[in-house]
């Protein structure tokens, strides 16, 4: 169904218009409620995700040029703050941080006399869970629809199973999400194929569509939750007239037509399962550096490892959890060696998990079509092209089988 025909896309009656100069009030409303505002800002030649001290730190007037293996800032002809895509970071940096302390423990070794006059060494310990007391509360400003879906996917992985990850749970429960719909997809974007953009229907407290036409920088904003409505009430706004709302909806719908790429999603899990012994992996391996960039920039890659450390006495121990990547050589380490030693096996693992076995494990695709992996791959490997290559090889194989 085309986005504009979807009745759920009809604008709600509660949409309001907030002028760009109303953003500081949004900041104040959030900070007044104890949130740390996190959003896009320019650092080191890229638009990253960072704590924002003020509205001024947003990247007004900056866009990006992206292609496979390429990301450059470019100056826009308008003052849009959210007219950019495929930055090197995603909201997992906030909700699923690169380093987190899981617990710490202190051990006391003493001697005890038993009733048989022997002494034995007895240890006692006290263990404290990390980040248990007061997890930080973040307001995520500028979450693209692809990233809203990515947060939903991380929810399923980290707190949707039998055991809930306490670090993610703590940050997620306290998070306030301000989504910003897309009106200008990037060259590496394919959220439409993955069914999660460029508009957003749920998973946010506030959703904004940025408009800059005719020099009138404003946002059409709607609340998705009571908490969102509460914050919005403290921001100067005016009721959105029908024309403005239509304008916003049309801008987003038109963006759906201008995606830079598309992913053939039909039968993907089966295609990948059937491709386990495909000759194509040798082809990818000749290009892939196994650098793991894709896993770092991907908003749904969640793999972590743990590290136990002690102080010099050895009696205070901590377990830290760190981001890890399936491209790391020791990721699959077992009994003296790794299971996946070749580049072929590691690339196959990443793409098969992301697009195929994620369905078996978590009930959905792991890909949201944000295009970050394509932009940030140093050799420009394009996940949509790799899937097409696998599909053609499967078609050839199927045709060969049909030949008498």
């Amino acid at each position, binding site marked *: 169904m085309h986005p504009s025909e979807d009745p759920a896309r009809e604008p709600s009656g509660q949409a309001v218009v907030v002028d760009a100069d109303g953003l500081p009030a949004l900041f104040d409303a959030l900070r007044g409620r104890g949130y740390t505002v996190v959003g896009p800002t320019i650092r080191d030649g890229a638009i990253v995700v960072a704590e924002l001290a003020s509205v001024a730190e947003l990247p007004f007037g900056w866009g990006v040029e992206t292609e496979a293996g390429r990301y450059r800032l470019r100056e826009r002809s308008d003052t849009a703050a959210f007219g950019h895509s495929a930055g090197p970071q995603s909201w997992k940096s906030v909700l699923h941080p690169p380093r987190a302390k899981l617990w710490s423990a202190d051990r006391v070794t003493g001697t005890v006399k038993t009733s048989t006059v022997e002494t034995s060494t007895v240890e006692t310990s006290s263990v404290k869970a990390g980040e248990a007391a007061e997890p930080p509360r973040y307001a995520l400003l500028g979450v693209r629809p692809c990233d809203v879906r990515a947060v939903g996917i991380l929810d399923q992985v980290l707190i949707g199973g039998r055991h809930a990850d306490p670090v993610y749970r703590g940050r997620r429960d306290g998070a306030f999400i301000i989504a910003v719909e897309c009106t200008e997809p990037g060259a590496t974007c394919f959220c439409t194929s993955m069914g999660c953009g460029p508009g957003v229907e749920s998973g946010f407290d506030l959703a904004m569509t940025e408009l800059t036409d005719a020099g009138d920088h404003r946002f059409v904003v709607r609340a998705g939750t009571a908490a969102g409505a509460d914050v919005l009430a403290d921001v100067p706004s005016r009721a959105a007239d029908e024309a403005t709302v239509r304008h916003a909806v049309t801008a987003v719908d038109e963006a759906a037509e201008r995606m830079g790429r598309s992913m053939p999603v039909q039968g993907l899990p089966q295609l990948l399962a059937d491709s386990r012994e495909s000759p194509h992996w040798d082809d990818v391996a000749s290009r892939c550096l196994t650098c793991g960039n894709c896993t770092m920039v991907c908003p749904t890659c969640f793999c972590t490892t743990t590290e136990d450390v002690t102080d010099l006495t050895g009696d205070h121990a901590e377990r830290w959890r760190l981001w890890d990547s399936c491209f790391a*050589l*020791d990721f699959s*380490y*077992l*009994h*003296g*060696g*790794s299971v996946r*030693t070749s580049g072929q096996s590691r690339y196959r693992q990443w793409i098969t998990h992301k697009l195929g076995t994620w369905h078996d494990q978590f009930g959905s695709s792991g890909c949201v079509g944000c295009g970050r992996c394509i932009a940030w791959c140093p050799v420009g490997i394009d996940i949509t092209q790799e899937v097409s290559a696998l599909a053609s090889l499967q078609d050839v194989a199927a045709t060969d089988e049909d030949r008498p």
Partner: protein
Amino acid sequence: MTGTVAARLSAQPFFAALTDSQRGALAEDGTAVTFAAGKRLFDEGGVADMFWLMEQGGIALDMRVPGRGDQIVETLGPGTVLGWSWLHRPYRWHFGAVARLATTAIAFDAASVRRRCDADPAFGYAMLRAFTPVITERLQATRLRLLDLYAAPSQVRHADIGPVNA
């Protein structure tokens, strides 16, 4: 065990693929034998002039290793054959064999069986078809044992990949 050699031969599945007449011919070269536990059947390097179809008991194949004594390389149980060195020149045993348990078997005159194989290719082919699966199975098993799968990682020499953390 009682019964004629021919009957006892038919009772074992090992030569089941032979025709009745082929089995009958083979039985003519067979004799029922028993070994007490500890009896040595043959020595490494000896003339391979017999082979056995085991019915009950157990045999150990061994090899003389200076400094280690007689090293057992494999044990065999009922229902399988002992000895295939008789099939090819120089007709000499590569291993020794000793009965671990009281054993009953049918012993075959190797030279006579070889003459039958030369005279009747169909019989010869049927014999090889019976023996080669055993040989490949034991080869495969031996290769798997060579992998030393139960060894600890430190006992296995391989490329150093990744930290030993587990």
